[in-house]
Each structure stands twice: as structure tokens, then as C-alpha cells.
């Protein structure tokens, strides 16, 4: 079979799914799902296999997952997850085949600057350090990337306005994947097109000279 396509489901995981008390397996890997991972999933009494990896979820992992007694597989790599990882997860040897026994938190999500295809430590080498000149922005990366000026702007964009397009428009910032960031409000470039200054008008850091 060669004509197989991946699903491209988008939007959020409906909060209503957290009401499915019989749920044992939620496996929505490799879609384009967004939003956060609701803490109530960690409270589902029979949830054994939770795989939301390789989507576009952001935020943190709730403490509730660390308290789950049913959880065996917890796959959240390849998203936009940041610290902290609940300590209770890092010491839970029931999950991910006991990877936490040897790797601690890395058995849940690889730390910044490291990666594996799965997004968590895998024997024998655990999470692999990124090649020179590359790093990761989020926990549980499946690949490293070279971080450029505009990537940093994109992070700023995500953190400050990410889910609020209105704010974006109001401040005349455009799609961070575009190449005309020198024209964005608050950005100053030098003659080479390199970003030389960022002003943060919203934070009161506005410097009239741009430095």
C-alpha cells in the first residue's frame, strides 16, 4: 500500500474527552492539534496509553499525570512543551517502560539542547546533544534546529501574542515566517538586514533611540 496519507486533524483536543471515564487509550500522534494538554486527562482512572506526540500543543505538563496510577505510556514529545515537568512523573517507573528509572525526567521529555526521534530518552544513549550551532526551543524535541534572529522574534511573538491575532495586528507584526521583519514595529535593523534593536513598547521598555 503506497497511497497512505497521514491524518491532519487540527484544532484542540475537546475538553469533553476528559469526561470519558472509561478511556484507556488516547492516541492522536502526528496530527496538527493545538492548545494545551488538559490536566483532567491525568485524572482519568483507566488512562493507560496517552500519546499526543508530534502535534502543536503548548504549555506545561500538569501534576495530575504524575499522580496517575493507570498511566503506562506517556508520549508528549514533538510539541511546544516547556518546564517544569512534574517531579512525580520523573520518578514514576511505571511509565514509558521504566525509562525514568535510568533517565529520570529525560524518560518523559528530552531537556533543552537535546533530542531523540521519540522526544524522550531511548537506550542506549538517552537524549542526544544537538549538533554544534543547533539547539531546541522546547522540551521533547525530535530534531534540533539552528536558531536565528527571526526565530527568537517568533518565540517572542508566540509567548507574547501567540494566541491573540488581534494583538499581533495592533502592533503590526506579521507572520514570523515572513522575511520583512525589519519593518515590524519595534524592530530596528542595520544595513545588512540584521536585527540591531528590539523595543518593547507594551512593557514600557520603549527607548526612543532604539537601543
Amino acid at each position, binding site marked *: 500500500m503506497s497511497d*497512505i496519507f*497521514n491524518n491532519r486533524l*487540527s484544532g484542540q483536543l*475537546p475538553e469533553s474527552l476528559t469526561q470519558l471515564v*472509561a478511556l*484507556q487509550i488516547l492516541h492522536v500522534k502526528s496530527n496538527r492539534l493545538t492548545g494545551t494538554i488538559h490536566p483532567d486527562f491525568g485524572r482519568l482512572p483507566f488512562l493507560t496509553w496517552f500519546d499526543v506526540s508530534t502535534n502543536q500543543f503548548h504549555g506545561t505538563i500538569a501534576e495530575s499525570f504524575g499522580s496517575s496510577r493507570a498511566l503506562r505510556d506517556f508520549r508528549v514529545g514533538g510539541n511546544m512543551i516547556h518546564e517544569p515537568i512534574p517531579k512525580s512523573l520523573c520518578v514514576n517507573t511505571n511509565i514509558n517502560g521504566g525509562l525514568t528509572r535510568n533517565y529520570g525526567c529525560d524518560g518523559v521529555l528530552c531537556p533543552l539542547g537535546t533530542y531523540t526521534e*521519540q522526544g524522550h530518552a531511548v537506550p542506549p544513549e538517552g537524549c542526544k546533544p544537538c549538533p554544534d550551532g543547533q539547539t531546541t526551543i522546547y522540551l521533547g524535541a525530535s530534531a534540533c534546529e539552528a536558531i536565528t534572529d527571526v526565530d527568537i522574534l517568533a518565540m517572542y511573538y508566540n509567548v507574547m501574542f501567540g494566541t491573540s491575532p488581534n494583538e499581533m495586528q495592533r502592533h503590526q507584526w506579521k507572520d514570523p515566517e515572513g522575511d520583512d521583519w525589519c519593518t515590524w514595529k519595534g524592530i530596528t535593523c542595520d544595513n545588512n538586514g540584521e536585527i540591531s534593536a528590539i523595543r518593547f513598547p507594551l512593557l514600557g521598555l520603549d527607548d526612543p533611540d532604539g537601543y
Partner: protein
Amino acid sequence: MIFKGCAAVMCPPGTFSPSGAATMEYGCRPCVPSDEGGKHNPPLKKVLGSSACPGTNFVYGDLNGDGELSDREILRLLWVYTDGMNWGPDYAMWGDAGTGECLLIGVKCSDKDEVIEIDLSGATLCAESGRSSQHSQACRGLPRELGQLRKLAILKLNEQKYLRTTIPSELGLLSKLQHLDLGKSPFVVGSIPDSIGRLSSLKILNLARCRLNGTIPDGLYRLTRLEKLYFSLNSLSGSISTQLGRLTNLKEFMVSRASISGRIPDEVGDLIHLENLELYGNNLTGTIPASIGNCSSLRRIGTSGRSSVLFRDVLVSYDSLTNASCQTFSTIDCLVNCQKV
């Protein structure tokens, strides 16, 4: 009366068959007097090997010449059409039309000696054509006459490695059929007939791991008694209809790696008995409907986009936790699961 001997060369006087002789598939049929005067019949009375008889219809598969298809004659057609000689040693009696249908291996009858179950999962249908890799005349696929086994409740022809066939639309006539299984038969080809919607008793439909194309027919959504549906690993097209909500008895809906597209309909939330929803590895778009929260029996949701992960196979290993089952696939996920053994 089963025609043997000379009839296999030429039909006796006063009888006929399309080829003028009895074959593996049919016998010679006596001419029925077409009128009281018998004007048309006398010429045939002395003729051997007639291929037609005015006023008398021929019924294909009719071995005893009574003009009707008995259950035994239908089973015999199935045997002939799928190279019964090579089904395997347990099934030799299928070829002997003198052995009653209820005595055949793989057949179960009701108290009234009606055929209610055919399970040929132990036989190798079309074995010779599979071995010789040529499209043998010995394998003509499932005869449409199967649809005339009106009391049939179970039809299992699963895991047939060599059976090359379409799904005859006449199977839709099996109004008592509760369980149809053609799963893991990689040469079951063509589309799923819309007539499948006439199987009003159907509870289990397994067409997974066949080579079916075309869309999921609208008729399917008329099967309101359906509890388990397996369509995974086919080359279907089109999407899941909003009529899905009519299948309110559905417990398992498994349509993974089946090349379907479109959205998951909101009506999935009407399936209040749904326990297992598997849609991974398709080309589905849109959102996961919030209405799924109404499916209060749901235990498993698999809508992964990654086609390389055989979700069901991983589940097998997950449930049984044996190393053997892990050897069938190679993802790290599997290895991680196996480490728990």
C-alpha cells in the same frame, strides 16, 4: 438424482444443459412438457446432448435437474468456483454432491437442517492459482448464488491468502446474516457493494486487510444493528458520512490506514455504545468533534496521523506482552512496550 457417467459426455435424451453435458457445476435437466399436446418435446426425446429445451429454463448450478438451487448445490458451486479440490484434506466431501450439506466440515445447520454457518477459515481457497501465480480458471471467486442461502447467519472466509474475488452484490440477499468476515484476504478486490445495506441482521462486518477500493457505500449506514465494523488497511476513498450517527449499536469502528479523507462527523457523538474508535493513518482533516465526549463507553481513541505505527498490532503486544508479537513490527514504541515483560 445426480447425473453421472454418460451424462458427463452428453445429456441423455429428454434432458439438456447449456453445454449439452453434465459438468462439475450442473447436471442435465429433464425437459418439462411445455403444453399438454407436447408438440415441442418429441423431437428431443431421441436426441443426445441437447443444449436447450423449449419452455424449460435452466438454473445454473442445478446438479439434480429439478430446476431449483438447493443449499447443497450452492455449496457445491462455491467448492467448484474456488478450486475445492485443493482446499485441504478435511474438505474432500464437499465435492461429493451425495454428502449432505450438514455433514460437511465448515458447515453448521439449524435443527431444521438449514445451512446457518459457513466457516472456511481452515480451508485454503484457490490454493492452486495462488501457488502457480497465474489466474487459473480453477479460481473464479465467490459465486453470486451464495446470496440464496437465505438462512445463513455466519459467513467466515477470512485469512484466505489466494482467494481472488470481488464481493458479489447478491450477498445483500442474506437477510439473516449476522457475521460477515472476509478479513485478511488480500485478494478480495473491487468495491464494497451498496447492497450490503440490505444485510439487516448484520452485527459484525470484517473487511479489514483486503484490497478494496471505492467509497464506503451509503447502504452501510442502514445497518443499524451493526456492533463491530472493521475496514482498516484498504484503499478506500471518500469520507465518513454524517449518517454514521444511525449506527447507534456500534461498539467498534476501525477504519485505520484505509485512505479515507474528510472530517470526523459530529454524529460520532451519537454512538453512545462506542468503545473503540480507530482512524489512524488516514487523510482526515478538521477537528476532533467535541461530541465524542458523549460516547461514554469509549475506551480507545486512535486517530494518529502516523501511518507507520500499527496501532492495532501494538495493542496486541500491549495486551499480551509477549516478545513474539513484538517481532512483527520494529518501532521503538514496540520495543519499549516489550521491555515491560
